[in-house]
């Protein structure tokens, strides 16, 4: 049975709740349907060791396959550069949330607002309020939480899953995006 309770027990469930990502293909399809996807990557993306690397490595693969723009929050922009990925932009999580809710924002490349934001690596409680802000104030935007703890304020979120399952899901998404 999938577990779609909020990971942190006192976080209040909400009326409009995320669709659980039961198969990684859900994410692949969402990215493929999107005209302007953006990855938003927090510092926890470099703190967790997965079998195939760190979460940031999977994001880089996804961004390279899709050409989606990528924001590094916190202090990890240098981690992208170290890995040879020089196309990431730095912006804080609250700055990027603030811009994503603005329909007039021209985007990082001046080409216009995004229609899909995929978040990974932000502290759970901070991601919670950022996703909630986007849910309420960015009707033009769909959101995906790529972390392993369920985020009900996203449009789609993984249920609460193990690290091993998380690694497999991220890998599948990265591989399928590359193949398609």
């Amino acid at each position, binding site marked *: 049975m999938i577990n779609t309770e909020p*990971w*942190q*027990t*006192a*976080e*209040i*469930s*909400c*009326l*409009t709740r995320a669709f659980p990502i039961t198969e990684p293909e859900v994410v692949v399809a969402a990215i493929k349907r999107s005209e302007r996807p953006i990855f938003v990557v*927090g*510092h926890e993306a470099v703190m967790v060791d997965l079998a195939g690397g760190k979460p940031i490595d999977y994001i880089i693969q996804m961004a390279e396959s899709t050409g989606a723009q990528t924001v590094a*929050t*916190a*202090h990890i*922009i*240098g*981690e992208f*550069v*170290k890995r040879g990925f020089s196309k990431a*932009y*730095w912006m*804080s*999580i*609250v*700055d990027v*949330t*603030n*811009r994503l*809710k603005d329909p007039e*924002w*021209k985007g990082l490349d001046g080409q216009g607002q995004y229609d899909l934001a995929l978040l990974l690596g*932000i*502290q*759970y*409680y*901070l991601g*919670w*309020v*950022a996703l*909630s*802000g986007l*849910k*309420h*104030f960015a*009707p033009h935007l769909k959101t995906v939480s790529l972390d392993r703890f369920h985020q009900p304020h996203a449009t789609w979120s993984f249920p609460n899953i193990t690290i091993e399952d998380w690694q497999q899901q991220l890998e599948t998404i990265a591989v399928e995006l590359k193949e398609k």
Partner: protein
Amino acid sequence: MEIAIGKIIEEEWAEPMGPTPYPSITTLREWDLKLLKKYKPLYMPYCDVCCLCTMGKCDLTRGKRGACGLDMSAQQSRIVLLACCIGASTHTGHARHLVEHLINKYGPDLPLDVGKSVGIEVEAPITRLVCGVRPRTLADLEDVLDYLETQITHLVASTHTGQEGSELDFESKAFHAGMIDHVGMEVADIAQISAFDLPKADPDAPLAEIGLGAVDVSKPVILVIGHNVPPAVEIIDYLDKNGLYDKVEVTGICCTAHDLTRYNPKAKIIGPISWQLRYIRSGIPDVIVVDEQCIRADVLVEAQRIETPVIASSEKNCLGLVNRTLDPVDEVVADLAARKAGGAVILDPAKVGEVASRVAFEVAPKRTKFKAIPDFAETIREAKKCTQCNECRRACPNNLPIPEAFGEAAAGRTSKLADLYEVCIGCGRCESACHNHIRIHSSIIRAAERKIKEEKYKVRVGRGAIQDVEIRNVGAPIVLGEIPGVIALVGCANYPNGGREVAEIADEFAKRRYIVVSSGCSAMSIAMHKNSEGKSLYEVYPGTFEAGGLVNVGSCVSNAHIAGAAIKIADIFAKRRLRANYEEIADYIHNRVGAVGLAWGAITQKAASIASGFWRLGVPVIVGPHGSKYRRMLLGRRDREEDWYVYDARTGGQVYTGPTPEHLFYVAETKEEAMVMMAKLCLRPNDTTKGRMIKLSNYIDMHRKFYGVMPDDLEQLVRREADIPITMKDEITKILEEKGWQERATPDPTLLPRMIGARKVK
């Protein structure tokens, strides 16, 4: 003589009355809206509903309005206002109780003195600025408190169903609550400094001991917790008067501890707010005296587990205990010593002093430091009960890997449990969540026993105000930018990765010759780490308000001196009129004084109102990631050039300044991000080229050090070629050329049209 708001305002003060004495909740609205135009709110709700009235719960998702007509933005700003009102009322209520007590004890005519002997003439800068009065005695402060209480009443009323409906007006009122809070803090601290003869702006205030390992457990131990120090002062006085002080340990947690060491540096600070559970369960305290604010609501339950009586000394926190204020001391002492009651309410501080002292001596031999912490073997047995269900981890604010640590402990290895001690905020939610009733927090304490015994550090006791002469010395280099900034590390202890990060931040900025100011729990956390020579930062850096200084002003209410220092720079250095001249002074500070606050572990509503007082002064505040739960940020948009124009006071023209300072309220995900943003938020439109060069040097250097790359916004921050740091000139020039950068003017900046060509100085 002039009559205003029913008060007689004395006119021996030569400075003429400014435009906004005793401002109402809308008097400064225009100023607030100017700030809010530049720093628009970003709302980040917890949930989808409002549940504050019986027409609800109302679904406010995605633009829906509730039954009362309020939308989600307004509801979030209403919550922000409520938080700020709670904070402001708490400091003001604290101040009221304190002033009433001091008047009873010392008389209404006791002169206010926060440092006359060191030349302080501006004794109450915030009160002068807001109210337009110059308080001379304790009695004068009562008039100020009357005003504050009226304002808080109106502010709370505006949150009632069917009142305010605009998010920006809620925000303006939140700013007002913050300003009121700052006055309340100032009243409290100048009253206690004057009456209790606390350090008076003394950069060489003595060093006191801090840490659980600093306590001599062979003696009876008294613990005081809270923020309102009179009962603790009476304990010291009773012990001193009876020649008993050397036979007992008086220890404190949270801001009462700060103020206790300001009164007597032989007292010992245990630690921040989060040290309550670990210290009580250690069994060391023989009697616990609580006053008000930030005290665990289960303190009585925890105290009963170690058979320690509790004395509740504040009307605001009676804990369900019987009021024994009017009973004979001998009877109360006998009952508490015999454990006939878990504790007592005693609302007379002098009586608290005697009862607490005598009970400590009577109880200590009976208790023999009875602990509520399992021994090592019990810890292992407890660990074996763990089913790895993860409920503790899910309850932990920091998502700490508790199950993993218990898995190791079950095999007899407790080092991972001990590691949790460093980052645990001591809330105890893990224990409440455990289905098997494992004493999780207590087990962590047992595992970390050796670390706890080594917790023994030095903290410079709170010095209070900043001297006028210090302001004269640093005013020019701060305003011109040659001192890169004033960094205020304030607030509570809900840290994402333990208190060490606050010490690391303080060290980084002090080394870089910023002025580092601290208060409250953050001031304690800074002390609780040693450098390679075994010294705390307070032993390394001077306590002077100067470049490279580390200045502990004191407790929560001492935060008023940080705002006061910014105000005094405008008044004493720039000679701007202070009296009831809020907008002009805030405009000056916002555009010229490179000050930034960091509340890395902000928890409370008081932290919200303190921050809000700084927002109205135009001073940016950064919070740690948990601060996102305040649900609203105030963010600038550096991509919107039109937001960054000011008036040039010399010409009246509008001049682009770049995003300086970029944000007013900002959450940082990591300490590295916080430090880089702090350096950046010290930039001000008024910086001289030399000053901007120094500030940019620090910003760029920290960006490269912590992010590993150059910043991407230099074209917005470099105004003229002379702003470019010399050692990075070639690299930066190349970047600027690639971005098509052009030189631009440095204005005499103001947001107030009335200041164009009209600057008034004293």
